[in-house]
């Protein structure tokens, strides 16, 4: 997938949510994180134009928004696959085979860390501890669902289900 910029717009409903987020904090700069989340939910990743858009909504310098967006690892500054698999390899997962899961999926999909499959369906990322150490090894999909106590067979099944539901 090419690294296309896009120009975001929020509709009236979304603008209400923007106002709600602004009302939560005594200074509207604080709404920058919730607004970046809204952008990512809607478009899948955060383009430079989207950062400018958030800056304009909150009357913040564009470079401030850029600074925030680049600080936090869960904000995607580049497109990711439709299913972005975030595989934990931190200590507890590593002890229970986290790297086996990572390497298995990587080999199976033919992509390395932070790469996307040519069809744009999958991307993978090696991530730090996700607070699921007792049910290691595990992965998260698109910053959302956890898949815990994985085996390579289950990982295969998961990939297949995702591909079929596509």
């Amino acid at each position, binding site marked *: 997938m090419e690294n296309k910029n896009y120009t975001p717009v929020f509709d009236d409903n979304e603008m209400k949510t923007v106002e709600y987020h602004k009302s939560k904090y005594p200074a509207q700069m*604080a709404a920058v994180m919730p607004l970046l*989340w809204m952008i990512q939910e809607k478009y899948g990743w955060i383009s430079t134009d989207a950062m400018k858009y958030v800056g304009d909504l909150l009357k913040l310098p564009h470079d401030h928004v850029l600074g925030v967006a680049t600080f*936090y690892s869960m904000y995607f500054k580049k497109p990711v696959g439709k299913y972005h698999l975030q595989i934990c390899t931190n200590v507890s997962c*590593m002890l229970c085979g986290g790297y086996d899961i990572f390497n298995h999926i990587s080999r199976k999909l033919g992509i390395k860390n932070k790469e996307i499959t040519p069809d744009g369906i999958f991307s993978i990322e090696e991530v730090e*501890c996700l607070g699921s150490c007792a049910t290691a090894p595990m992965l998260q999909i698109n910053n959302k*669902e956890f898949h815990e106590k994985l085996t390579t067979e289950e990982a295969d099944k998961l990939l297949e289900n995702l591909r079929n539901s596509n």
Partner: protein
Amino acid sequence: MEKIILKDIPDLDKISVYESNGGYAAWKKVLSQMKPEEVIEEVKKSGLRGRGGACFPTGLKWSFMPKGNEKPKYLCCNGDESEPGSFKDREIFEKNPHQFIEGALIAAYSMGIKAVYVYIRGEYWKWINIMEECVSDAYKNGYIGKNILGSGYSVEMYVHKGAGAYICGEESSLMNSLEGKRGYPRVKPPFPAAVGVWGNPTTINNIETLANVPEIINKGAEWFSKIGEPKHPGTLLFGVSGHVNKPGVYELPTGIPLMTLINDYCGGVKNGKDFKMIIPGGSSMPPLTKEESLTMKMDAESLKAVGSAIGTAGVMVMNEDTDIVHVLQRITKFYYHESCGQCTPCREGCGWMLKVLNRIMDGTGRHSDLDLLISVAENIEGNTICALGDAAAWPVKWTIRKFRKEFEAKIKEDKTGLPAVNKVHGLRKSEEYMTISDHTEQVKVEKLMGKVQELTQNEDVKRFSS
């Protein structure tokens, strides 16, 4: 043993179930019968200490907040929970979220706070949704909002979603993140009670700390202070992971023997193996050897006595086959990734330590590397804005000290031809380097030292090194 937080009541996350099991009674009692100072006094007497890692006395922390109302005051609830090996706050969000909310409200009342922010790590998508629903239910039932239950006291509560940065668990970084900035820790002093979020007095508490508060109000400080170890009373949510048969979160009194936790509750080490190393409180805490573990009691003071700490009570168990060097390399990679980059010792030091550990793992390590690692760690420790620097340094320093043989076994031959004792970088603190027996080593060192002296005569070098 009776549990304070993870009670065996199904559906306790539903507000009606929570209420019918005595939920929000403490909140009603506080609003109708207690003055703010009395609440703080009760929590002080209970001996409750913070569960976020530093074990700071909670009542004392609350008493640091200014009494007047000239400025708005804030409470930040720390649910960032990103320390590798920690997954206990997640259990509270899932199993007993209202008890945490109730505790946060009581804390807010005791300090005259007008707004509470619950900061939850962005990866906890599911638990953020649960919390948002619970907060909204508590609003509906009149426990949060304006003039609560006719008491005249008003407070708001908001959930704030993080976006993947371990450092945002550090309290001053959390405040910057909440303000909509990069999560850079702040230089202290000023402390949050004086200048916190948006420049106003702020208290930061861990989720588990606050979840203990309602029961302290219900059953009294004395009841609480008699549970577990007197100097660190109450229960802890031990999160056990790694090579055990039944990993999970176990709520047990402080001071429980580590071996009881592992053998009786977690079903022992997997596949009948022996264990080699245990990290007692999340990856930042110095590890325990098998010998230390056998007699260790799990509370702040007992662990402090052997130079480790209870941290977040995230216990990571490693069996006899574990590659300790690989574990340390992975831990260091984490801190290198998570350093915010403000302080040179932390930013560069973590990178150096990782590079050295990488080469030891690759089989190209040098004999001097182990002392080099310790000296880099010692030069990070205490020289940084926040404790992430220490958190990165401790595992390196202590794992090498306690498991040196494992590291030496990976550096069988030194392929670099560099002197074993590298005087040039001048970082070594140990005294051993004064006794060089090997003459050729000595010559190499002298040659290199000569080269350095030559260089320092150079005008450019002088300019940059003065």
